């Protein structure tokens, strides 16, 4: 078990680690080839979403009526959709929209879920009780159904008042409702575990303030986990946005999202399957790379779960892996 001195000695950037290790976080991450490749693909996808449209230069909303549902050709490298719009241009644009939604969802999830989780875990007592019960309630709520309810009831008013960006935030907000209780539950568990560690007790005994303990002992221990579960949640968010779109409650047309492109082309599966294939591939790719990056991060933060890990006492490990599996489980099942 780590001694207080060891933690004090650990450089700030690496103190995500709760265990003393010979090698740093990035070293371990880089040893995981799948995770590294995935990270590269993820960066490529993000580049495609941000710089891609500029480089490609085709208007994603321009309608070429002679190219309706056309197959890949020199004019349209990935074909065109049911309104004759260029699929490559729309995929880039759609990636941008989908990733933006996912970004806001995770931002809200972290801001609300992680903060409340930290607070509940660290403060304990009544604060913990109130927050946990509230999270439990949302947790028992049929998640996506609630997101649909919020998006359906407030969608129009919000769009009228705040336009497209308001709509995007509403969609993100309602999807975050599905994610944040899990994040809170998870961070709370981790904070509780950390709080009982020897080094926290030692820090307290030498008179460290709550703020200091939080900053230098608790926060570093949960940040990695927050990042991991947020990363793993991205894929689910992209699919959930697609489900909202399926009900006409997602992002407003003509702007595409990856999920929306799939929905719009699925009716034409038998006319031109390529139009379903391309956005679906992008979606699958998003899910795969974000999952692998998440896995890689987890293994690097928590080396025991990786194959080359050193051994340590079992009980805290079990706790950790259980709590990791919870948000993942739910982010997976709630995309049904």
């Amino acid at each position, binding site marked *: 078990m780590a001694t207080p001195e060891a933690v004090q000695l650990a450089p700030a950037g690496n103190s995500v680690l709760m265990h003393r290790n010979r090698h740093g976080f990035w070293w371990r991450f880089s040893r995981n080839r799948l995770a590294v490749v995935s990270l590269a693909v993820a960066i490529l996808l993000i580049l495609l979403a941000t710089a891609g449209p500029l480089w490609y230069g085709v208007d994603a*909303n*321009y*309608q070429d*009526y*002679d190219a*309706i549902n056309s197959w890949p050709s020199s004019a349209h490298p990935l074909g065109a959709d*049911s*309104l*004759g719009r260029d699929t490559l241009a729309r995929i880039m644009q759609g990636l941008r929209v989908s990733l933006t939604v996912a970004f806001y969802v995770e931002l809200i999830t972290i801001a609300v879920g992680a903060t409340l989780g930290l607070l509940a875990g660290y403060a304990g007592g009544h604060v913990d009780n109130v927050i946990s019960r509230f999270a439990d309630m949302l947790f028992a709520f049929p998640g996506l159904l609630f997101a649909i309810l919020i998006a*359906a009831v407030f*969608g*129009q008013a919000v*769009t*009228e008042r705040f*336009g497209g960006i308001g709509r995007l935030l509403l969609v993100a907000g309602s999807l975050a409702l599905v994610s944040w209780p899990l994040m809170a539950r998870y961070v709370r568990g981790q904070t509780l575990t950390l709080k009982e560690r020897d080094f926290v007790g030692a820090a307290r005994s030498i008179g460290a303030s709550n703020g200091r303990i939080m900053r230098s002992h608790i926060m570093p221990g949960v940040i990695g986990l927050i990042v991991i579960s947020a990363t793993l949640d991205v894929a689910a968010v992209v699919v959930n946005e697609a489900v909202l779109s399926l*009900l*006409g*409650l997602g992002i*407003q*047309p*003509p702007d595409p999202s990856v999920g929306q492109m799939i929905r*719009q082309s699925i*009716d*034409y599966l*038998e*006319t031109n399957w390529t139009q379903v294939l391309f956005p679906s591939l992008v979606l699958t790719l998003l899910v795969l790379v974000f999952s692998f990056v998440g896995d890689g991060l987890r293994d690097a933060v928590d080396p025991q779960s990786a194959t080359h890990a050193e051994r340590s006492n079992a009980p805290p490990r079990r706790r950790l892996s259980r709590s990791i599996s919870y948000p993942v489980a739910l982010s997976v099942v709630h995309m049904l």
Partner: protein
Amino acid sequence: MSWKKMIPLFVLVLVAVVAAGCAAPAPTGQSAAQPAAAEATAPAGVQKLIWSVEGVNELPGLDPANPQNAQSIQAINLIFGGLVKLDDQLNVVPDGAEKWEVSEDGKTYTFTIREGLKFADGAPVTANDFAASINRALQPETASYGASFQLGHIVGANDVAAGNAKEASGIVVVDDRTLAITLDDNVPYFLAQLTYPVSFAVPLQAVEKDPTGWTEKAFGTGPFQVKEWQHNQKLILEPNPNYWAGAPSIAEVELPFFQDSETAYQLYRTGGLDIMGSQQNPVPAAHVAEVKDSPDFKTVASFATRYIGFNNKLAPFDNPQVRRAFALAVDKATLADKVLSGAVTPTDRIVPAGFPGSQLPVKGLAFDAAAAKQELAAAGYGADNPFPQVTFTYGAEGDNERVATFLQQQWKENLGVDVVLQPLELATFSKNLDTTYLTPEAGLQFYLSIWGADYPDAQNFVSQQLRSDSPNNNGHFENADFDKLAMEADTFIGSAEDRLKLYNEAEQIAVDQVGWLPLYSPSFNVLIRPEVSGVVATGQGLVFPDWSQVTSRAAQ
């Protein structure tokens, strides 16, 4: 930990497996609440007709006094009957009444009830049953949304609707077989209105016995009666043994509900349905090409018009020149042929093709981008006075999103106007139309909508939609010349031809002033299995002229 402790886990898995295995063959246990499909199926060998109901996962109700959507009307028309009905040419023909007379002023209709007419349970039907059914439909306790509107011309109807009377004074039971109905005006389309379910005969004894639950086993004077209503799944009908035209030869009609017409199409093509496709939810456009040459495929122009409505009380669409500019800037041919792959017929007018009155020509606003720009300039918009950003609203269903996106592009390209799209989920959309009618200043700017015929009379389109005093004129189109012509036609005494001429003149004004911006008439594309005979596709849906002649496949 010992093996014993693993037992609960295995039990859980086992339970799950057993649940999966058992629940399937015989839906017992936890799925008992779901009526077993097996017991409702007709015995093998007899004829069974499976006709899908698309666009809903459940019928809102079967009470003819309150037909809430086209899907429930599809079922109501099989179970109930009125005084008159439509034939396959959409003429009004006798149903519960074998004949009728109209007074010279056109205000009094005297019906002779068919001799020996019975409800499905064998109880005789008299003039009193019809009178009581109509009064019931009007009473506020029935909460019918459409009755007071459809039957409002009957003298005293409004008193009943307002709760001030129980019976309309204009409905008089002369004797058991004679019913006289007096109207407040000459209403040439009154008989056509009587083909709409609100005036159909309902078995009042059954209604009184169970006012909310009687429709579970609904029956009336129509060819069929309810055998079983499997909620959220299907409605199963069996023949009415007392049907006046002879009991149908089909032993069972099954009406399964499909929210998504794609699902119904999938079932049809693997042999699970005998008829699929309705006016509102025809064979999906994406599949029309696949089935176009099949003998199963039938297509007729629907008596419906998809149009753009404008809020005439709000700038900038209060200006007819702006509306004209928007109308001239839309290439409807491309919309119909390319975007909607020929599944619709483009139109420049209000009355749908084939509908009474459509034989008289109307000159439409044909696509002309240059003329459109001129109109917009003439309305005072240009470089120094740019056109404001406007919002176009539509209900998120079917092809609407693609149509709206197409229109957005057209206005951008041909007028240089930026239009924001606002898809609304259907319920919210119709609520917004109400708002637009009740408080125009807080209403929609312009919107995509559709109107389908309630009954085959030009009044149903021209006057009901655009007369300034009509409650269906959501956009508040107002034109004095139009109103004068439409009003004259609505109460016209004389030849039907002369009356249609008046409507035609009115329609021309509405087209020129863009009361509506008509886009297209959807095609009623329907798939009917070749084994099914005795059914005719009309612009107002499927008509079965003589149920005793209708055949279908033998149940398996």
